[in-house]
Structure formats: C-alpha cells, structure tokens
C-alpha cells in the first residue's frame, strides 16, 4: 500500500514543484507572457487542485466467499495488483465468447464512461452470422483495444505522441498528438478512431423548460473525459478533439481500484480483467485454458486481449 501512495504522491509533487520553480525562474521575463494561457487554462488549475489518488480510497472488498460474483473476485485481484510497482503489472482482458449475448452494454457503458462523441468508439461488438437459414447461429465479438505487446500503431507516430506503457497499456498523449491519423491506418484491428469534434445533440431541438432537450443533453456531453487519468473537458478545437482516440482499459478507473466500464456492465459476466502477471488471479487462470485465442495472431502483434471459444 505505501509503495503506491509514495509513487503517486511523488510524481504529482515533482510536477508541481517543477512548474513552480520554472515559473519563478522566468517570472517577469518575456517568456511569462507565453505561459499565461497555460496557467489560466482549466486543465492546469484543475491538475493542481486535484489531489493524487490515495491508496486508502480504494474500495473495500468483502472477504472471499463461496458463490461470489466474479466482479468481486476481480476487484480483489485488482487491489492486489495495484500494490505492485507499475512495471510488474500486465493488464490483460479475457472475453468469453460463449457468455456474450450481444447486448452491446459494454459499448454503451464505455461511451458513457469516456463521454465518447459520435464517430468515436472504443469497444464495438461485432456480430458474426454462422450457417444458413434455418440453421443460423450468431456469435458476438467485442473488440476493445488489444493493448498489443508489439503495437504497430506506436512506431508510426511521427511526433512520439503514443507509446506502450510499462504496465502494457498503449497510451496516447492528447496534448502531443497532431492528429495525422497515421496510427489509425496502422492498427490491424481498427481500434483507433478519430475525434472529429462532433456532438450527439447536434440538431436536437431546444427545450429549456422541461427535463429533456438540448441544454441538458449538452451539459452531459461536455463533461470531461478522464482518459489516461487526466481531465479532458470537451472544449472547442481542444484535445481530445482532433486526436486519435482508443480504449485504454479505463486506466483512470483501474488505477483507482475500479474495474473497466465494460467489465462491470457486462450482464453475462463475459469480460474479465486483471493483471496477467499474477498467477493466482482469474484472468491468468483463463488465459491458461486451451480454448483461448487472439485476433489476428498471425500478425505477431501479441494482443493482451484474449477470447475464449
């Protein structure tokens, strides 16, 4: 527990003091004028105000008991994984296709969690039709970001705005991304999408008096997303608008001891999540099964999303 606290605390403090020092040094100087927009922007002040997440704030999980929901076990697993240093974690996902009923709840909860605009989707569910009438079956395949161990999308970025983190999650720095979309073409899974700055409530009729209408819907849509643990209010032409975006396993949730949105919303409990480096956890158990497969294995991208058939 203290390890993580220290880790998080120090990173935050270092940042803040660095900035202060820097400001002191150039204060009054000609460069100060260049920094003003940065100081007064929302992002900067909220970053200062927001305290580092405390390990004590992690949710309390009841002790292990028979017949408990897998979600409880996974949350307990998650809590244990968070005590390890970042580089020893290997976030992985297992999706049991036999349990997926194709309800698309994960897609929707993901959109709600990450406040995704039209044209951006992190986890669509693909439908495959097998056989011919009257002998037809459907198979549903959710497709999050594969968080590849050998990601083809990161190397092509011309400006070093995306990389694989030590815990295995492929991160995009929205502030660095210039929006060239080369990474989108390079991903073999179409897991990256482009935020063109659209809103679901465009052309929605205004209705100020009631509980429906544009204002209320808008209010929801411009609430900040928390991709990669930072606050991203949806403002005109500002990141993440104009950026490549993709699933990040709800990093902001897992680092606070919560499971990704798609996992908790899965009505069939078909999606599993955890640190595959920990041999005792559910995900590691499932990955070890013989009926496991990954998408486009032949490309050698080594996805960290596994499917059970």
């Amino acid at each position: 527990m203290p390890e993580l606290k220290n880790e998080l605390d120090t990173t935050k403090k270092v940042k803040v003091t660095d900035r202060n020092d820097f400001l002191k040094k150039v204060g009054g100087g000609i460069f100060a004028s260049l920094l003003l927009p940065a100081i007064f922007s929302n992002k900067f002040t909220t970053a200062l105000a927001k305290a580092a997440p405390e390990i004590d704030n992690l949710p309390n999980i009841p002790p292990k008991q028979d017949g408990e929901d897998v979600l409880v076990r996974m949350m307990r697993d998650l809590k244990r994984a968070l005590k390890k240093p970042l580089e020893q974690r290997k976030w992985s996902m297992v999706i049991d296709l036999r349990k997926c009923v194709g309800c698309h709840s994960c897609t929707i909860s993901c959109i709600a969690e990450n406040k995704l605009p039209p044209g951006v989707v992190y986890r669509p569910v693909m439908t495959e039709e097998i056989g011919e009438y009257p002998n037809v079956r459907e198979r549903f395949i959710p497709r999050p970001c594969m968080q590849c161990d050998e990601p083809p999308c990161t190397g092509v970025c011309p400006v070093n705005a995306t990389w694989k983190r030590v815990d295995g999650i492929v991160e995009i720095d929205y502030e660095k991304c210039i929006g060239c979309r080369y990474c989108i073409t390079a991903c073999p899974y179409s897991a990256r999408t482009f935020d063109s700055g659209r809103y679901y409530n465009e052309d929605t009729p205004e209705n100020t008096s009631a509980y429906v209408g544009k204002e209320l819907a808008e209010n929801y849509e411009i609430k900040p997303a928390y991709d990669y643990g930072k606050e991203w209010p949806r403002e005109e032409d500002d990141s993440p608008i104009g950026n490549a975006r993709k699933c990040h396993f709800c990093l902001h949730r897992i680092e606070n001891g919560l499971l990704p949105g798609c996992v908790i919303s899965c009505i069939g409990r078909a999606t599993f999540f955890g640190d595959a480096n920990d041999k005792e956890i559910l995900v590691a158990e499932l990955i070890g099964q013989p009926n496991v497969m990954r998408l486009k294995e032949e490309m050698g991208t080594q996805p960290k999303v596994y499917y059970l058939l």
Partner: protein
Amino acid sequence: MRDSTFSKTELISQNRVKILNKMFRIAVTIALVIGFVGLIDRIANGHHNANYGSYIPWGLWVAGYIYLIGLSAGAFMMSALVFVFRIKAFERIGKLALLVALATLIGAMLSIWMDVGHMGRIYRMIFNTNFGSVMGWMAWLYGLYFILLSIEFWIAVRPDLVAWMQKEGIKGKLARFLTFGKTNISDEKIQKDKKTLRILGSIGIPLAIAFHGSVGAIFGAVGARPYWNSGLTPIIFLVGALLSGGALLAFVVYLWGPERRSRENSEIVFLIGRIVLALLALDVLLEYAEITIGLWSSVPSESESLKLILFGDYWGVFWFVHIGLGIVIPALLLIFKSRTPRFVALAGFLIAVTFISVRLNIVIPGLAIPELEGLRDAFTGPGLTFSYFPSLMEWLVFIFNCAVAASIFILGRIYLPVAVVRNNEMETNHE
C-alpha cells in the same frame, strides 16, 4: 534531323495560347473564391464537416497532398535534366520547372496541413520528431527540399532579375528587391552559378527520390493494409511523380514557355512528350504488375481492395478517368500527334489532371476494406463507415489548395523572369 522549316501546325499558335491563358486565369480566380468558402468552413468547424473519420481516416486531402507533392517531385527531377545533366535542349525551361516544383510543393504542404487534427502543433514534426517513423522524416525532408528549391530557383533567376532591374513598376521593384544586391552577372560569376546549380541539383535528385519515395513508404510500410504493404509502392510513387510532373511540364511549357512561337519551344514540348510517353508505359507496367499480382494471389484482404477499384462503386474513376482520360487518350495523342504542340500539351494536361484519380485509388481502397469484417455494422455513425466520398467542404478546400499552387505559379510567371531566355543560351542549336 528534321527540316529547319516547321509546318504551321508544329508551331504554337499565339492566339490559342492567349485564349487558354485567359481561361486558365479565370478558372483559377473562380477556384480561389469558391475554395475560400471551404477554407472558412475548415477553419471555423474543424473536421466536423469532413467525410473522412475513424474507419477511413485519410481522404481527399491526403490524396491531394500526394498528388501535388508528386507533381513537385516530378517537375523538380525534370529541372535536374537542365542543371545536373545539362541537357541543352531543356535549358530554356529550367526556371519554369523549378517554379512549378515550388508552387506545387506549397500547395501540397497546405493540403496536408489542412488535414491534420491540430494545425497549431505541426511544429512538433520538427521539434519532437520520431525518426523511427517514415512520416517523422517528412517534415525534415520537405524542409530541406523547400530550402534547396528556393535557393536553386533564386540562383537560376538571379541573372535575369538583374536584367529586369531597369524595368518600371512591380516587376522592376521586385527584381531590385530579390537580387538582394547581388548584381554581378559577369561570365565568370554565371559559370560559377552554373556549377552551384549543378551541385544543388545533384543533392536535389536523391533528396527528391528520398522524400517522394518516403511518401510512398508511408503507405508501403503499413503492415495492416495489404493493398499498400508492398515494396513496389514507393517505386510506383516515384514513377507516378515523374510521369505526372513531366506531363504537367509539357502543358506548362506549351502555355507559358519562353518565346512561345519559337521553333525551340515546340521542340521542347515534343521532347517532353516523348519522355512522358516512355514514363507512361513504365507506369502502366508497374500498375499492371501491382493489380494482377494482387488479384491472382486471391488473398481477399488485398484482392478486395483491387476489386473495389476495378468494379466497386467508383469503378468509373479507374476505367474512365484513369485508363480512358489518363492513359489511352494521352497515349494515342503522344503517339500519333507527337509533333503537334497543342495535342502534346493536351496529353500532358490530361495525364497531370487525372492523376488525382490514381492518388485517390491508392489512399481510399486501402482503407475501405474493413480490417475485421464485423466492424461494418458493429457500431456505425459519422466516420464509422467504410464508404467514402469527399464532402463539399473537402472538395472546396482541395480546390483551394490547387488554386493556391496555380496562383503562385501564375504570379511567378508574370512577375519573375522565369520565361526569359538569355542570349548566351540562345546560341544552342538543337540536334
């Protein structure tokens, strides 16, 4: 060896050129005005009104960019015939070719700049370059190319600028300013300049191969897209650049070449026509190889893209625009009317203009085949579809970018001595 007396049809008609020139200027003015509407939309609403998006992330502007940059690389390589290989017949059009290269380069940069999500962060291409990415190299290569091209152009026009300093009005003022006080035009200095031009041109050839080859490599290196992922892609890009750039030059020399009615001018048009015909044959060969290998291999991920080009919704773009207007008609003109300047110029014009269809057919079909078939209907929305046709805003901005390139050329042609032949060059006798 031909008879020194030209038949009437072999000379460029002054009247026709005048009319065409006027039409061209009117067209460019209109294009600038209507294109500006698109530009305002792009600046005000960002990528909102664009039809490219998540599944087809690159559209008309990327195609427009590789189209214009190809024209630039091609025109530049043609100028190398003058400054590096010193082919006498071409000496008269060296400056013109450099101006074309410069104008289309600026148009191309504008096109790709409009395309990025954060135009204000484009400086990161230089300051935070990832040299592990082909695209990371681009800003550097373009920067070098732009500098080299500008210096080369300046050295090439400087002696004529000096001659223009006496002129009155804008031309004279511009000439006096642009010489930057370097008014020495002694034979010695001119010879020295020629040597410098040769060195710059020699650096320029590998640079042009590098940057345009890299544009091809951007596509060729994407393992996820079988249609692009081929060692042939950068080569096809280079041949396409030479072909389209050369073809454009045939048209440009016809319309804006020095002393249009002179015999020499017609000869250059004919010579470029022959080069373009050879390049056209090479380009067809490469395209044939690419298409047939892809179809015969019958790996759906690649053959589906090719089938989309040949028989998809936009099959007309390939068969009519590219094969018909871009290959068959120009080839016939270049074979059977090879000594009629206006037909050679028309062939060049057709190839150069329709080459945008080749560029579109590289960019779009590579993206329009779902990487995972189920994605087609999994979650749809704007940008989450696998069919693409540019929106009105995209067309307008594309037209604007091309019009900017054309305007730079027109202004350069009017206000700079690019189509002036110095006396010592006139001595050259052809063949």
